[in-house]
């Protein structure tokens, strides 16, 4: 490896010199301006920042969105945990994620409702990233209780051409990517294959994965176009345990350690979609059909021997799911200044999932869960956009979501079916009181389906288990009510200031708690917050942005803070893609203290990432540094009981646990356009 690195380093100046002698450097990357978002909380990340920001996975790019905090509490390959606007969205329970309109959240996933795994999304093929925070647009669907994030696939014009990328980094990371992006094709036509191997920055974090993703236009005539998308992904990865902060502080373990060895996981996906864009100017139509096969296996232990002092609490979760879905969107403008749209979507999925208890050697010692089920989701969205005056635009409508379940529990020998309906109104107002001012206001209701397991859970109080608060009850849809208002001001071209306030109320948050395996009434919560942003483009080749989100999230009944959600999140990025071929970015994340359950607190952190690159002709060299300041902090902090050291007394008291963030990581990449 050392020899290879040396050869690589020696080859860089030679390649650069060759480029100097040959063709001039390519024109700089297009830096997309900040398109006026339809809502105060809406954000679009420009493609230059997407391309230049140091990242390991597509999920890392979600951290560029203001107010979104992304945590990996396993290792690369496992789904991430998301925090948005005061929501602990777990693995995706409150964040709807779509890629080219395809729903990525996995309802009723064995590991977490709405589980999001973007392992198939090769970062080089992320053309656009857009967030709609709050639930204010009629197209936002299941899991959009806090926000919806949309990825688009493709390669921007300046990056087009077939290319090979090889990246090496600390922790023995090697990553090879091949990108197919014909220069004469549109930005959406591209494909990539990615292979990654990494020893990981801490114990039990090694991983290997491969992904292939492609999108191409098969047929085009006039406005009509038929497009296909295909993806395949496979990953195997280690799974560390969380470490007790008190053990780290006492020097018994390092923050990057794991109490257990051999825990691991695997994930794979096959995805195919066909999209038709057609109709005419008055009746544009988009129709999409998709199918997916998905497997997930997670062998984890978070609590040591707390539950089972002999065998330990290691458990294996397995899931296999096949899903098909469709999406149809039709628009029409019956009169001037009024545009109507109708959206239809459907999804049917068959899932087999199980959870086995394992002993420390990985042998099964019991079956905790064994379910097979069908789950269906259909939605009808009706919306209208009306511009009664030149300076005012109203958009609104409602959606009806229907969920159906047919569940068989092979452990309890229970079976059940259920159907639920939810109506969600949405409204947006945009006004332009002056050429450089935009007023934005919106309100709406977001929703989250219940887990399939809830259908066969206890329907009422379980004798000798509940005192008063929880009444069991039937599966129900969780809804969140949002309101927001904002102002944007562009004093001169290229300079933008924005400010917004938001409020979220959840009257009756009901979750299927996988600790108790029953429905749990969490009570009402409310979130109020402030979002500020500024963006400056001093030149066509540079963009600076900073945003801050302050949120106060609390349980209404007793004013306790909602655990885990950061109260302050600041993100600052400076990206340069100069015509000389130099490019670079510096990004800073400032994370405030995080309240954790029952009064514990996780420290905040300031983390800097940076990247520098130079393109000369068909070659580019990039150096990425993640966590430039080598800040030591817990990316994920939790408060629960565990018992790992059996020489010490068992205690059921929760203690602060953490998953350490990556220490400083340096990666060197070489790109060759063929």
């Amino acid at each position, binding site marked *: 490896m050392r020899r290879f690195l040396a050869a690589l380093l020696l080859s860089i100046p030679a390649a650069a010199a060759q480029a100097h002698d040959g063709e001039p450097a390519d024109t700089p990357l297009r830096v997309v301006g900040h398109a006026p978002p339809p809502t105060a909380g809406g954000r679009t990340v420009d493609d230059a920042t997407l391309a230049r920001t140091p990242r390991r996975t597509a999920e890392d790019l979600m951290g560029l969105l203001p107010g979104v905090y992304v945590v990996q509490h396993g290792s690369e390959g496992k789904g991430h945990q998301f925090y948005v606007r005061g929501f602990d969205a777990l693995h995706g329970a409150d964040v709807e994620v779509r890629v080219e309109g395809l729903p990525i959240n996995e309802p009723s996933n064995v590991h977490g409702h709405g589980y999001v795994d973007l392992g198939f999304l090769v970062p080089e093929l992320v053309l656009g990233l857009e967030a709609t925070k709050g639930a204010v647009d009629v197209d936002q669907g299941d899991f959009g209780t806090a926000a919806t994030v949309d990825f688009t696939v493709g390669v921007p014009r300046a990056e087009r051409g077939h290319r090979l990328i090889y990246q090496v980094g600390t922790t023995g990371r090697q990553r090879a990517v091949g990108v197919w992006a014909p220069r004469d094709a549109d930005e959406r036509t591209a494909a990539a294959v990615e292979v990654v191997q990494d020893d990981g920055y801490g114990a039990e974090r090694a991983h290997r994965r491969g992904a292939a993703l492609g999108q191409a236009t098969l047929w085009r005539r006039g406005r009509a176009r038929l497009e296909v998308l295909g993806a395949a992904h496979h990953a195997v990865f280690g799974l560390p345990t969380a470490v007790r902060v008190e053990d780290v502080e006492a020097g018994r373990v390092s923050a990057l350690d794991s109490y257990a060895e051999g825990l691991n996981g695997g994930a794979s996906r096959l995805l195919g979609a066909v999209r038709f864009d057609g109709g005419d100017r008055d009746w544009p139509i988009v129709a999409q059909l998709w199918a997916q096969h998905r497997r997930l296996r997670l062998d984890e232990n978070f609590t040591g021997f707390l539950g089972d002092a002999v065998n330990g609490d290691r458990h294996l979760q397995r899931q296999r799911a096949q899903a098909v879905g469709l999406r149809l969107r039709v628009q029409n403008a019956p009169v001037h200044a009024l545009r109507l749209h109708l959206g239809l979507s459907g999804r049917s999925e068959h899932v087999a999932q199980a959870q086995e208890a394992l002993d420390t050697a990985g042998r099964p010692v019991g079956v905790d869960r064994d379910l097979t089920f069908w789950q269906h989701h259909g939605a009808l969205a009706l919306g209208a956009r009306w511009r009664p005056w030149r300076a005012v635009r109203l958009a609104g409508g409602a959606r009806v979501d229907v969920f159906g379940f047919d569940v068989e529990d092979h452990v*309890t020998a229970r079976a059940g079916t259920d159907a639920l309906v939810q109506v969600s109104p949405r409204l947006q107002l945009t006004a332009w009181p002056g050429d450089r001012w935009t007023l934005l206001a919106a309100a709406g209701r977001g929703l989250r389906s219940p887990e399939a397991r809830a259908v066969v859970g*206890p329907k009422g109080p379980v004798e000798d288990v509940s005192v008063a608060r929880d009444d069991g009850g039937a599966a129900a849809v969780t809804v969140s009510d949002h309101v927001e208002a904002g102002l944007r001001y562009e004093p001169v071209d290229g300079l933008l200031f924005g400010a917004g306030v938001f409020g979220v109320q959840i009257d009756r948050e009901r979750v299927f708690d996988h600790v108790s395996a029953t429905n749990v009434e969490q009570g009402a919560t409310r979130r109020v917050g402030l979002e500020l942003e500024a963006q400056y483009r001093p030149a066509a080749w540079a963009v600076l942005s900073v945003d801050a989100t302050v949120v106060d999230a609390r349980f209404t009944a007793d004013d306790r803070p909602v655990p885990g959600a950061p109260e302050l999140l600041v993100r600052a990025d400076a990206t340069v893609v100069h015509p000389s071929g130099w490019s670079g970015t510096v990004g800073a994340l400032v994370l405030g203290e995080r309240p954790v*359950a*029952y*009064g514990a607190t996780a*420290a905040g952190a300031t983390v800097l990432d940076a990247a520098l690159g130079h393109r000369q002709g068909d070659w580019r060299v990039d150096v990425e540094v993640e966590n430039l300041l080598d800040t030591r902090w817990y990316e994920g902090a*939790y408060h*629960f009981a565990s018992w790992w050291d059996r020489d010490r007394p068992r205690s*059921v008291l929760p203690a*602060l646990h953490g998953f350490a963030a990556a220490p400083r990581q340096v990666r060197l990449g070489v790109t060759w356009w063929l």
Partner: protein
Amino acid sequence: MRALRCLAALVACAACGGEDDEAVRVPVQVVVAEDPLGTATTDLGYAVTVEQARVVVVDMAFTQGGEMHASLTHPLSWLLGVAHAHPGHTAGGEPTGELPGRHVVRWPAGGALGEGVALVGRYDGADFGFGRAEAADGVMPDDPLFDHTAHLRGAAEKNGRRWTFQLILDQDDERRVVGAPMPLQVTEGAPPTIAFHLYLVDPIEGDTLFDGVDFAALDADGDGDVTLSPGESASNRVRRGLQSHEHFGFSERK
């Protein structure tokens, strides 16, 4: 220059990120309530007075909110599945206070059970398991409680007749009482004393610990003395009552 200043400010912020702080832990004294156990009138019309009740309990845990999933060794784990904590769990119900160890609880004699610890917060319930009395608990082999879980002694009266009784019962080792009411606010700087109660009458539903026990029928020799041993039908009725959170409670002793 301005950009450099901003960068410096951000770097400086790295040093003011605060610290990881564990939740505040408060010592709590747990004692046995000294109130007389009183008299309960059963569904069969017996007025039952318990003079002394002794129960061996183990590993008390105090919980905040969402009592449904308090215990990792859930009494209904065969039905509900094994619980595994997981990062991100915030639904409540986890134990946040405890008094570990074995304790022979004597009502109404009272006495201290020990010093536990609890996190600051509002408590709703308590869980505990059962054990069998041993010499190490101060229970000698000639004591009727020895090698058993509970021993109750008292009298029952009906229609002018009176029976004295002794009741001995056992509970399974894995059995736990979950969600015994414990309305209590634990605050920093004011360590509370918690009194452990046994209720002959369920304060919510009104049923009694001795419902269904027909003392007259159990007094086969008519001498007015009834002894109920583990496994007997009448003993099992009381045993079921003592498995329920409804006959236990915790309160703050002012």
